[in-house]
């Protein structure tokens, strides 16, 4: 008797708990559903266009010679993958971007840190670097070829130049914009210059540094195409040029898709590698 009443009471309590939960919960579940929906929404347009085009070519409404239907692009991609060509080209491109990115990013970080942390060095370095930045990077190509030859060195140099400037600007700007209030906390605890750099400046700069590196990486991929256009026998850029000269639009599109996938993968890798460093940030980064 008492038990049943008790259970009735707890049952009631439960239901009221659930009521409370139901009152509180919708925001989170709704958010999740809306979020999932939005991801699917992003797929809708490209998939619809691909299906429409596929249908149009299949039913003879359009001729797929210059704009090949998705099925032919996929077939080309898998053929390239089967012969192993795709991997050689993709690997070559990745290697160039990687080497160029490392050189460009390291020099960008070093010079950016120097010019961000010392006014004298900034006045010494910055005008020259800004002037160099104003030159379109592609304009260096002829000079690089004369200086470094037509092989890898000139290509890597071009990519490094492309990566350097956004990283340099990002790092220097990030250091200059570190909150004075946090620096004062370091001063109050009498940190030396080195300690201040390590314990306050470095962590404060990290989020913006990651963004600078990401935009540097993006430019690296942009410039690897330019570099491979100027004469390469391997690389995804070569596939593009080859496709144009041989009249194979499916190969061009296959290479473009490969670029998209590589670029996205590289960016995600960079983000994943740096996430532990900036986990403390009070932002909605997951959405980006």
């Amino acid at each position, binding site marked *: 008797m008492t038990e049943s009443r008790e259970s009735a009471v707890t049952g009631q309590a439960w239901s009221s708990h659930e009521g409370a939960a139901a009152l509180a919960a919708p925001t989170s579940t709704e958010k999740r559903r809306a979020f999932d929906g939005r991801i699917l929404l992003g797929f809708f347009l490209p998939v619809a266009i691909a299906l429409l085009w596929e249908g149009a070519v299949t039913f003879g409404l359009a001729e797929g010679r210059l704009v090949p239907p998705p099925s032919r692009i996929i077939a080309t991609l898998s053929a390239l993958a089967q012969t192993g060509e795709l991997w050689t080209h993709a690997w070559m491109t990745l290697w160039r971007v990687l080497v160029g990115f490392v050189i460009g990013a390291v020099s960008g970080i070093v010079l950016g840190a120097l010019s961000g942390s010392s006014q004298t060095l900034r006045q010494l370095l910055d005008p020259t670097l800004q002037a160099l930045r104003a030159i379109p990077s592609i304009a260096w190509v002829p000079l690089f070829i004369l200086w470094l030859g037509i092989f890898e060195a000139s290509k890597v140099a071009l990519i490094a130049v492309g990566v350097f400037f956004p990283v340099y600007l990002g790092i220097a700007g990030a250091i200059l914009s570190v909150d004075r209030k946090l620096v004062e906390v370091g001063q*109050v605890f*009498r940190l030396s210059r080195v300690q201040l750099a390590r314990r306050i400046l470095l962590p404060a700069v990290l989020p913006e540094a990651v963004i600078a590196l990401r935009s540097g990486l993006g430019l690296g991929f942009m410039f690897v195409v330019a570099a491979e256009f100027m004469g390469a026998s391997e690389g995804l850029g070569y596939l593009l040029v080859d496709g144009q000269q041989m009249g194979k639009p499916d190969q061009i599109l296959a290479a473009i898709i490969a670029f998209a996938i590589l670029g996205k993968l590289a960016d995600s890798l960079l983000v994943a590698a740096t996430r532990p460093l900036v986990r403390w940030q009070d932002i909605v980064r997951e959405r980006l």
Partner: protein
Amino acid sequence: MLSFEHLSKTYADGTRALSDINLTVHEGEIVALIGGSGCGKTTLLRLIAGLDRESAGRIRLDGEVLSGPHPAVGIVFQEPRLLPWLSVFDNIAFGLAGVNAAERQARVTHALEKIGLVEHANRWPRDLSGGQQQRVSIARAFVTNPKVLLLDEPFSALDAFTRASLHDHLLGLWEETRPTVVLVTHDVQEAVTLADRAVVMQPKPGRIFDELPLTLSRPRDRTGLPFETSVRRILTALDHSLKAPQQQPQRERDRQAAALWW
């Protein structure tokens, strides 16, 4: 003992923030600096903390002239100023870099207990409320056992309930080591709640207008008559301090108006 001798501060743009400040704060005393905005309260704290340099005069701590940040001086800023990339624990331990690990652990844990945030030790500052963040900031200053603690309107951004509870947390920490405290505030109630002496300041240039001893016994009853009387005395002093300089420009304006009328 903390003393100011003919302390003045003129900023590069010619603003006279402080002019000829002479004051002695005894060991273990809590002094509240009260005044309207622009009377140099914060400037005075920044000079003691070593974040700015005085233009003239000197600050002495137990006879030693202060120049630059001093290990025996701690400060709590108006904002919590926690380092967002450090956990609550590491934020409190920030000034204990030279202390060995066991001692650091013990001191920080004790401080966390005192401010009632033990279960939040491993969280990021962003997960705390404003009042909790300010408590962490107070603990960060106390944990190094400073001889002098400077508080720069640390409760001004908080609601009345949070403020009252933080006053208790602050007094609880203060009881343990009894550091000398210089508290800047524009809240008269707060000054009467915490301080042994109220120093009323006057703007343009910042200078000391009056000193009022607050001899109420602790813990102080905020609703009692003596409390009310003290508040009223300070308010009166503040009133006078603001009237005196304002008459000056008024007369000046009249003179100018007369000149124009001519």
